């Protein structure tokens, strides 16, 4: 991987894979951020998050909710608008080398998306299970929900929007239409977020803390399946890459 960058950098042009973007944006940004979030949960979950009617709950938890939601809307809007505004309008001037470089940028976006999906759908979702089987909820906006539903889910949605928009505006293969598997892999998990509404409504309606596999949660399952769209997306990406570095254009391969 390092050789890919080094060999190209020696030629005096931008590397195909920007390692700094990969490690800083794709990996470190999400991990460091969520480790800080987890530390905050550990400290203020027990000390200020047990009673939604207590003053300390309004001090330590509700401000996070009030700040994060508008910030996420703004971020998603900015990412989509920026990528659309700076889109490539004429692909005939873009070399195959540049398209390959953009594929690597796209992979960095997808690494970030995979990272964000892991933290949101795996780490903080199952964490919610143990918190609510231990601390009986008295509000929709519990410490685990404020992080899981209103922070980690929107963050992977924002990242997914970024992935999709980058491919749609920068890669000719994906600019030719709306990729169905890409739509599935981004919109499916996106729909988990609206499903939160059903979940929260149901929890105010039925008392069902004792069963994490309760039917009310099946909406999350259904939309979680859409992550399998990554399979079709990979088939499309590799189809395009075969054209870029396949035998017909690179006799050495």
């Amino acid at each position, binding site marked *: 991987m390092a050789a890919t960058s080094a*060999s190209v950098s020696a030629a005096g042009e931008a590397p195909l894979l920007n390692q700094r973007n990969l490690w800083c944006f794709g990996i470190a940004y999400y991990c460091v951020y969520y480790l800080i979030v987890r530390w905050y949960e550990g400290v203020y979950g027990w000390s200020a998050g047990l009673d939604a009617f207590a003053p300390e709950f309004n001090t330590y938890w509700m401000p996070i909710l009030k700040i994060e939601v508008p910030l996420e809307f703004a971020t998603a809007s900015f990412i989509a608008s920026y990528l659309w505004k700076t889109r490539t309008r004429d692909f005939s001037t873009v070399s195959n080398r540049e398209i390959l470089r953009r594929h690597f940028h796209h992979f960095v976006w997808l*690494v970030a*998306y995979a990272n964000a999906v892991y933290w949101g759908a795996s780490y903080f*979702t199952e964490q919610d299970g*143990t918190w609510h089987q231990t601390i009986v909820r008295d509000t929709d906006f519990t410490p685990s929900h404020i992080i899981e539903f209103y922070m980690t889910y929107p963050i992977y949605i924002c990242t997914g929007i970024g992935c999709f928009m980058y491919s749609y505006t920068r890669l000719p293969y994906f600019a030719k239409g709306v*990729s169905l598997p890409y739509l599935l892999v981004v919109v499916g*998990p996106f729909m988990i977020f609206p499903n939160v509404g059903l979940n929260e409504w149901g929890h105010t309606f039925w008392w069902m803390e004792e069963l994490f596999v309760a039917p009310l949660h099946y909406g999350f399952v259904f939309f979680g*399946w859409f992550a399998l769209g*990554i399979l079709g997306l990979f*088939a499309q990406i590799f189809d395009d890459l075969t054209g870029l570095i396949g035998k017909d254009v690179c006799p050495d391969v």
Partner: protein
Amino acid sequence: MSSTQSAVRSHAEAVQVSRTIDYLGLFILFFVILGGFHVHAMLTMGDWDFWSDWKDRRLWVTVTPIMLVTFPAAVQAIVWEHFRIGFGATLCCISLVLGEWINRYFNFWGWTYFPINIVFPAILTPGAILLDGVLILTNSYLATAVFGATAFALVFYPCNWVIIAGLHMPVEYHGILMSIADISGYHYVRTGTPEYIRMIEKGTLRTFGKDVAPVSAFFSAFVCIMIYFIWHFIGRWYGTTKFLQQT
């Protein structure tokens, strides 16, 4: 864009690019599948996997393989056919188990203080290796469904026996017959304590002798065959390469 100009400049660079893409792709596939599979797993069979006192001889043995043969079947349908990758099921199960272990340690233990020997996840990898092995050896989805999915379910209980056996030891506690897992559960009361909701080992199970787990495993195996077929086609559907509008 020139369609004849190569994007790479040498054989060596083509190999480097190809390998780099492989690593990145594997990372992405691993963690996206982890996220989707973990949501699916925790919300369809999660309670049985969370707590050792839910890991009984009937529902745990039945529900877990049926719910977990799904993603492996879907992933195998695409990665074997399109990429000739023979470890689709193993990748799914290893990613799921990794996600579960991280969670059980840092959250079940690290945040809500349940001991690890109450909240460890089930072992899934041997069944997944069998599922992949059958597909690689036979190159047949039909054979994989019939023999692989059956094996996936049948080996589930034996593979987990090494970690669950000690917790199923019978003990007499205040004059009542219990298991070690029961007693552990009583000391760590949750809203999901099974004796409260009366789901675990109910009915005639505890008077049914030793034959419950094999019967449950075989029933699970039969259902797994059907589920494998269904999810194979679900995988194919998600593996579509269509575009919604061609311009």
